[in-house]
Protein backbone atom coordinates (compact mmCIF):
# COMPACT_ATOMS: atom_id res chain seq x y z
CA UNK A 1 0.00 0.00 0.00
CA UNK A 2 2.77 2.38 0.96
CA UNK A 3 4.62 1.59 -2.23
CA UNK A 4 1.51 2.25 -4.28
CA UNK A 5 1.10 5.64 -2.67
CA UNK A 6 4.69 6.45 -3.47
CA UNK A 7 4.46 5.60 -7.13
CA UNK A 8 0.90 6.70 -7.78
CA UNK A 9 1.57 10.40 -8.41
CA UNK A 10 4.38 9.59 -10.83
CA UNK A 11 2.33 7.07 -12.75
CA UNK A 12 -0.61 9.41 -12.85
CA UNK A 13 1.58 12.20 -14.14
CA UNK A 14 3.02 10.03 -16.83
CA UNK A 15 -0.32 8.59 -17.93
CA UNK A 16 -1.89 12.01 -18.06
CA UNK A 17 0.94 13.47 -20.05
CA UNK A 18 0.75 10.67 -22.60
CA UNK A 19 -3.01 11.02 -22.80
CA UNK A 20 -2.87 14.74 -23.31
CA UNK A 21 0.08 14.47 -25.65
CA UNK A 22 -2.05 12.30 -27.90
CA UNK A 23 -4.97 14.66 -27.65
CA UNK A 24 -3.23 17.95 -27.42
CA UNK A 25 -2.71 20.86 -29.55
CA UNK A 26 -4.61 24.01 -29.59
CA UNK A 27 -3.08 27.26 -28.60
CA UNK A 28 -4.01 28.25 -25.09
CA UNK A 29 -4.43 31.35 -23.03
CA UNK A 30 -2.88 33.08 -20.10
CA UNK A 31 -4.43 33.02 -16.75
CA UNK A 32 -5.80 36.51 -16.37
CA UNK A 33 -8.06 38.61 -18.50
CA UNK A 34 -5.93 41.29 -20.13
CA UNK A 35 -6.30 45.01 -19.58
CA UNK A 36 -9.17 46.54 -21.52
CA UNK A 37 -10.63 43.23 -22.65
CA UNK A 38 -13.79 43.47 -20.61
CA UNK A 39 -16.23 46.20 -21.55
CA UNK A 40 -16.62 49.02 -18.98
CA UNK A 41 -19.96 47.54 -17.91
CA UNK A 42 -18.57 44.10 -17.18
CA UNK A 43 -15.45 45.55 -15.55
CA UNK A 44 -17.61 47.52 -13.14
CA UNK A 45 -19.90 44.58 -12.53
CA UNK A 46 -17.03 42.29 -11.45
CA UNK A 47 -15.48 45.03 -9.34
CA UNK A 48 -18.81 45.37 -7.57
CA UNK A 49 -19.05 41.63 -7.03
CA UNK A 50 -15.48 41.41 -5.76
CA UNK A 51 -15.36 44.37 -3.37
CA UNK A 52 -17.71 43.00 -0.67
CA UNK A 53 -15.53 39.90 -0.42
CA UNK A 54 -12.45 42.09 -0.16
CA UNK A 55 -13.98 44.02 2.74
CA UNK A 56 -15.00 40.80 4.48
CA UNK A 57 -11.51 39.44 3.88
CA UNK A 58 -9.93 42.52 5.46
CA UNK A 59 -12.20 42.17 8.46
CA UNK A 60 -11.30 38.51 8.79
CA UNK A 61 -7.58 39.33 8.65
CA UNK A 62 -7.91 42.08 11.25
CA UNK A 63 -9.79 39.70 13.52
CA UNK A 64 -7.19 36.95 13.14
CA UNK A 65 -4.26 39.25 13.86
CA UNK A 66 -6.02 40.82 16.86
CA UNK A 67 -6.94 37.53 18.46
CA UNK A 68 -3.80 35.61 17.61
CA UNK A 69 -0.93 37.97 16.76
CA UNK A 70 1.40 34.97 16.57
CA UNK A 71 -0.41 33.87 13.40
CA UNK A 72 0.86 36.92 11.49
CA UNK A 73 3.84 34.89 10.40
CA UNK A 74 1.55 32.26 8.91
CA UNK A 75 -0.54 34.86 7.10
CA UNK A 76 2.67 36.25 5.64
CA UNK A 77 3.67 32.82 4.51
CA UNK A 78 0.31 32.10 2.88
CA UNK A 79 0.63 35.35 0.94
CA UNK A 80 4.24 34.64 0.03
CA UNK A 81 3.33 31.19 -1.26
CA UNK A 82 0.82 32.82 -3.61
CA UNK A 83 3.55 35.20 -4.78
CA UNK A 84 5.94 32.37 -5.57
CA UNK A 85 3.45 30.11 -7.31
CA UNK A 86 1.90 32.76 -9.49
CA UNK A 87 5.37 33.78 -10.66
CA UNK A 88 6.06 30.28 -11.95
CA UNK A 89 5.09 30.16 -15.59
CA UNK A 90 5.02 26.45 -16.23
CA UNK A 91 4.90 24.80 -19.63
CA UNK A 92 1.74 22.78 -20.08
CA UNK A 93 0.49 19.97 -22.26
CA UNK A 94 -1.31 22.28 -24.65
CA UNK A 95 1.99 23.71 -25.82
CA UNK A 96 1.71 26.99 -24.00
CA UNK A 97 2.49 28.25 -20.55
CA UNK A 98 0.39 29.36 -17.64
CA UNK A 99 0.89 29.68 -13.93
CA UNK A 100 -0.66 28.22 -10.79
CA UNK A 101 -2.40 30.41 -8.22
CA UNK A 102 -1.13 29.28 -4.83
CA UNK A 103 -4.29 30.22 -2.96
CA UNK A 104 -4.94 26.69 -1.67
CA UNK A 105 -2.48 26.81 1.22
CA UNK A 106 -3.94 29.92 2.83
CA UNK A 107 -7.45 28.64 2.26
CA UNK A 108 -6.69 25.45 4.16
CA UNK A 109 -5.09 27.44 6.98
CA UNK A 110 -7.46 30.36 7.40
CA UNK A 111 -10.59 29.62 5.41
CA UNK A 112 -11.46 31.30 2.11
CA UNK A 113 -12.10 34.92 3.12
CA UNK A 114 -8.58 36.14 4.00
CA UNK A 115 -7.40 34.93 0.60
CA UNK A 116 -9.51 37.58 -1.12
CA UNK A 117 -6.99 40.10 0.22
CA UNK A 118 -3.79 38.07 -0.20
CA UNK A 119 -4.69 36.94 -3.72
CA UNK A 120 -5.64 40.38 -4.94
CA UNK A 121 -2.36 41.86 -3.67
CA UNK A 122 -0.54 39.51 -6.04
CA UNK A 123 -2.87 40.44 -8.88
CA UNK A 124 -2.35 44.14 -8.23
CA UNK A 125 1.42 43.67 -8.30
CA UNK A 126 1.19 41.87 -11.63
CA UNK A 127 -1.26 44.36 -13.12
CA UNK A 128 0.79 47.41 -12.15
CA UNK A 129 4.29 46.18 -12.82
CA UNK A 130 4.03 43.35 -15.29
CA UNK A 131 1.15 44.35 -17.54
CA UNK A 132 -0.15 40.91 -16.65
CA UNK A 133 -3.90 41.05 -16.14
CA UNK A 134 -4.96 44.67 -15.68
CA UNK A 135 -6.57 47.32 -13.50
CA UNK A 136 -9.87 47.44 -15.35
CA UNK A 137 -10.07 43.65 -15.25
CA UNK A 138 -8.71 43.38 -11.69
CA UNK A 139 -12.20 42.97 -10.24
CA UNK A 140 -12.94 40.05 -12.55
CA UNK A 141 -9.52 38.45 -12.08
CA UNK A 142 -9.60 38.90 -8.32
CA UNK A 143 -13.06 37.38 -8.17
CA UNK A 144 -11.92 34.28 -10.05
CA UNK A 145 -8.55 33.76 -8.36
CA UNK A 146 -9.01 35.24 -4.88
CA UNK A 147 -12.70 34.56 -4.21
CA UNK A 148 -14.12 31.73 -6.32
CA UNK A 149 -10.95 29.60 -6.22
CA UNK A 150 -10.55 29.71 -2.44
CA UNK A 151 -14.26 29.04 -1.85
CA UNK A 152 -14.23 25.99 -4.11
CA UNK A 153 -10.98 24.82 -2.52
CA UNK A 154 -12.43 25.24 0.96
CA UNK A 155 -15.53 23.29 0.00
CA UNK A 156 -13.43 20.45 -1.43
CA UNK A 157 -11.29 20.38 1.71
CA UNK A 158 -14.31 20.10 3.97
CA UNK A 159 -15.94 17.52 1.73
CA UNK A 160 -12.90 15.25 1.65
CA UNK A 161 -12.10 15.70 5.33
CA UNK A 162 -15.63 14.64 6.16
CA UNK A 163 -15.73 11.71 3.75
CA UNK A 164 -12.18 10.30 3.82
CA UNK A 165 -10.59 11.98 6.85
CA UNK A 166 -7.27 11.98 4.97
CA UNK A 167 -5.88 15.46 5.48
CA UNK A 168 -3.15 15.26 2.86
CA UNK A 169 -5.60 14.18 0.19
CA UNK A 170 -8.01 16.91 1.26
CA UNK A 171 -5.26 19.54 1.02
CA UNK A 172 -4.16 18.27 -2.37
CA UNK A 173 -7.73 18.41 -3.67
CA UNK A 174 -8.34 21.85 -2.17
CA UNK A 175 -5.31 23.34 -3.91
CA UNK A 176 -5.97 21.54 -7.16
CA UNK A 177 -9.61 22.52 -7.42
CA UNK A 178 -8.98 26.08 -6.28
CA UNK A 179 -6.61 26.35 -9.23
CA UNK A 180 -8.93 24.68 -11.75
CA UNK A 181 -12.04 26.57 -10.69
CA UNK A 182 -10.20 29.88 -11.06
CA UNK A 183 -9.85 28.97 -14.69
CA UNK A 184 -13.43 27.86 -15.11
CA UNK A 185 -14.62 31.18 -13.69
CA UNK A 186 -12.27 33.12 -15.98
CA UNK A 187 -13.72 31.21 -18.95
CA UNK A 188 -17.21 31.99 -17.75
CA UNK A 189 -16.42 35.69 -17.37
CA UNK A 190 -15.03 35.84 -20.88
CA UNK A 191 -17.94 33.96 -22.39
CA UNK A 192 -20.46 36.22 -20.66
CA UNK A 193 -18.65 39.23 -22.07
CA UNK A 194 -18.13 37.67 -25.50
CA UNK A 195 -21.05 35.40 -26.36
CA UNK A 196 -20.48 33.83 -29.75
CA UNK A 197 -22.78 34.89 -32.60
CA UNK A 198 -23.74 31.36 -33.46
CA UNK A 199 -24.00 29.55 -30.16
CA UNK A 200 -24.28 32.31 -27.59
CA UNK A 201 -22.66 32.10 -24.17
CA UNK A 202 -22.54 28.32 -24.12
CA UNK A 203 -20.53 28.06 -27.31
CA UNK A 204 -18.07 30.66 -26.07
CA UNK A 205 -17.81 28.91 -22.73
CA UNK A 206 -17.09 25.61 -24.45
CA UNK A 207 -14.39 27.35 -26.45
CA UNK A 208 -12.67 29.21 -23.62
CA UNK A 209 -13.35 26.49 -21.10
CA UNK A 210 -12.00 23.50 -22.98
CA UNK A 211 -8.73 25.28 -23.70
CA UNK A 212 -8.34 26.78 -20.24
CA UNK A 213 -9.14 23.56 -18.44
CA UNK A 214 -6.75 21.52 -20.54
CA UNK A 215 -3.83 23.88 -20.03
CA UNK A 216 -4.45 24.10 -16.34
CA UNK A 217 -4.87 20.41 -15.46
CA UNK A 218 -1.18 19.53 -15.02
CA UNK A 219 -0.53 22.88 -13.33
CA UNK A 220 -3.37 22.26 -10.90
CA UNK A 221 -1.86 18.89 -10.04
CA UNK A 222 1.55 20.54 -9.56
CA UNK A 223 -0.04 23.11 -7.31
CA UNK A 224 -1.70 20.40 -5.23
CA UNK A 225 1.60 18.56 -4.82
CA UNK A 226 3.52 21.71 -3.88
CA UNK A 227 0.89 22.65 -1.30
CA UNK A 228 1.15 19.21 0.30
CA UNK A 229 4.94 19.60 0.28
CA UNK A 230 4.75 22.82 2.28
CA UNK A 231 2.21 21.25 4.61
CA UNK A 232 4.59 18.32 5.26
CA UNK A 233 7.22 20.80 6.34
CA UNK A 234 4.82 22.59 8.61
CA UNK A 235 3.89 19.35 10.27
CA UNK A 236 7.51 18.39 10.71
CA UNK A 237 8.05 21.36 12.96
CA UNK A 238 4.67 20.75 14.52
CA UNK A 239 4.66 24.12 16.12
CA UNK A 240 2.18 25.94 18.29
CA UNK A 241 1.19 27.89 15.18
CA UNK A 242 -0.12 24.74 13.58
CA UNK A 243 -2.05 23.68 16.66
CA UNK A 244 -3.39 27.21 16.94
CA UNK A 245 -4.58 26.98 13.37
CA UNK A 246 -6.19 23.66 14.11
CA UNK A 247 -7.95 24.95 17.16
CA UNK A 248 -9.04 28.40 16.11
CA UNK A 249 -9.27 28.70 12.39
CA UNK A 250 -12.05 27.80 10.05
CA UNK A 251 -9.49 26.26 7.73
CA UNK A 252 -7.60 23.35 9.15
CA UNK A 253 -9.35 20.86 11.36
CA UNK A 254 -7.50 18.31 13.51
CA UNK A 255 -4.28 17.30 11.86
Amino acid at each position, binding site marked *: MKKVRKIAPLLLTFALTIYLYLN*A*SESAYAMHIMEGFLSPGWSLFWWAVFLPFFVLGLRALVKITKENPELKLMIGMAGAFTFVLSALKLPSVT*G*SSSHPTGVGLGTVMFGPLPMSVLGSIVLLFQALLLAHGGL*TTLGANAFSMAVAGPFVGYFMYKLLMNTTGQQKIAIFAAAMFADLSTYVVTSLQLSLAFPSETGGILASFAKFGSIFALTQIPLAISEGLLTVLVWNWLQKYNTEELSLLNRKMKGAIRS
Partner: protein
Amino acid sequence: MKIGMKNALLLLAVILLALLPLLLINAEFGGADGAAEEAILEIDPTYEPWFNALTELPSETESMLFALQAALGAGVVGYTFGRLKGKSTQAKTQ
Protein backbone atom coordinates in the same frame (compact mmCIF):
# COMPACT_ATOMS: atom_id res chain seq x y z
CA MET B 1 8.97 7.22 4.91
CA LYS B 2 10.81 10.29 6.09
CA ILE B 3 9.31 13.68 5.31
CA GLY B 4 12.36 14.73 3.36
CA MET B 5 11.97 11.68 1.13
CA LYS B 6 8.27 12.32 0.63
CA ASN B 7 8.92 15.90 -0.32
CA ALA B 8 11.68 14.93 -2.71
CA LEU B 9 9.21 12.67 -4.51
CA LEU B 10 6.59 15.40 -4.61
CA LEU B 11 9.13 17.77 -6.08
CA LEU B 12 10.16 15.18 -8.65
CA ALA B 13 6.55 14.78 -9.74
CA VAL B 14 6.19 18.56 -10.13
CA ILE B 15 9.38 18.77 -12.18
CA LEU B 16 8.21 15.90 -14.40
CA LEU B 17 4.84 17.58 -14.90
CA ALA B 18 6.62 20.64 -16.24
CA LEU B 19 9.35 18.80 -18.11
CA LEU B 20 7.37 16.15 -19.98
CA PRO B 21 5.28 18.61 -22.00
CA LEU B 22 8.50 20.37 -23.00
CA LEU B 23 10.06 17.14 -24.16
CA LEU B 24 7.03 15.55 -25.77
CA ILE B 25 5.29 18.46 -27.39
CA ASN B 26 6.73 20.53 -30.13
CA ALA B 27 5.34 24.01 -29.55
CA GLU B 28 6.17 27.59 -28.73
CA PHE B 29 5.13 27.54 -25.07
CA GLY B 30 4.50 31.25 -25.28
CA GLY B 31 2.75 32.98 -22.45
CA ALA B 32 -0.57 33.09 -24.12
CA ASP B 33 -2.03 36.54 -23.62
CA GLY B 34 -1.83 37.11 -27.35
CA ALA B 35 -3.76 33.95 -28.10
CA ALA B 36 -6.54 35.03 -25.77
CA GLU B 37 -6.88 38.21 -27.80
CA GLU B 38 -7.16 36.11 -30.95
CA ALA B 39 -9.96 34.04 -29.50
CA ILE B 40 -11.85 37.13 -28.45
CA LEU B 41 -11.38 38.75 -31.84
CA GLU B 42 -12.57 35.56 -33.50
CA ILE B 43 -15.80 35.83 -31.58
CA ASP B 44 -16.16 39.59 -31.86
CA PRO B 45 -13.97 40.99 -34.66
CA THR B 46 -14.99 44.57 -33.90
CA TYR B 47 -13.83 44.61 -30.28
CA GLU B 48 -11.36 47.33 -29.35
CA PRO B 49 -9.66 47.20 -25.95
CA TRP B 50 -10.79 50.42 -24.24
CA PHE B 51 -7.93 50.71 -21.79
CA ASN B 52 -4.25 50.02 -22.19
CA ALA B 53 -1.78 48.68 -19.67
CA LEU B 54 -0.04 51.47 -17.81
CA THR B 55 3.39 50.03 -18.39
CA GLU B 56 4.83 48.49 -21.48
CA LEU B 57 8.06 47.10 -20.17
CA PRO B 58 10.91 45.59 -22.15
CA SER B 59 10.81 41.82 -21.86
CA GLU B 60 14.07 41.70 -19.89
CA THR B 61 12.66 44.04 -17.26
CA GLU B 62 9.51 42.01 -17.15
CA SER B 63 11.37 38.78 -16.48
CA MET B 64 13.34 40.61 -13.80
CA LEU B 65 10.09 41.61 -12.10
CA PHE B 66 8.78 38.07 -12.30
CA ALA B 67 11.99 36.89 -10.69
CA LEU B 68 11.58 39.59 -8.06
CA GLN B 69 8.06 38.40 -7.34
CA ALA B 70 9.25 34.84 -6.87
CA ALA B 71 12.24 35.98 -4.81
CA LEU B 72 10.12 38.07 -2.45
CA GLY B 73 7.77 35.17 -1.92
CA ALA B 74 10.51 32.61 -1.51
CA GLY B 75 12.33 34.88 0.94
CA VAL B 76 9.31 35.14 3.20
CA VAL B 77 8.58 31.41 2.99
CA GLY B 78 12.21 30.64 3.84
CA TYR B 79 12.25 33.08 6.73
CA THR B 80 9.06 31.55 8.12
CA PHE B 81 10.46 28.03 8.01
CA GLY B 82 13.68 29.21 9.61
CA ARG B 83 11.74 30.68 12.49
CA LEU B 84 9.52 27.63 12.88
CA LYS B 85 12.52 25.34 12.88
CA GLY B 86 14.30 27.48 15.44
CA LYS B 87 11.26 27.46 17.68
CA SER B 88 10.79 23.72 17.48
CA THR B 89 14.45 22.93 18.24
CA GLN B 90 14.28 25.32 21.19
CA ALA B 91 11.19 23.59 22.49
CA LYS B 92 12.92 20.22 22.20
CA THR B 93 16.04 21.21 24.08
CA GLN B 94 14.18 22.68 27.00
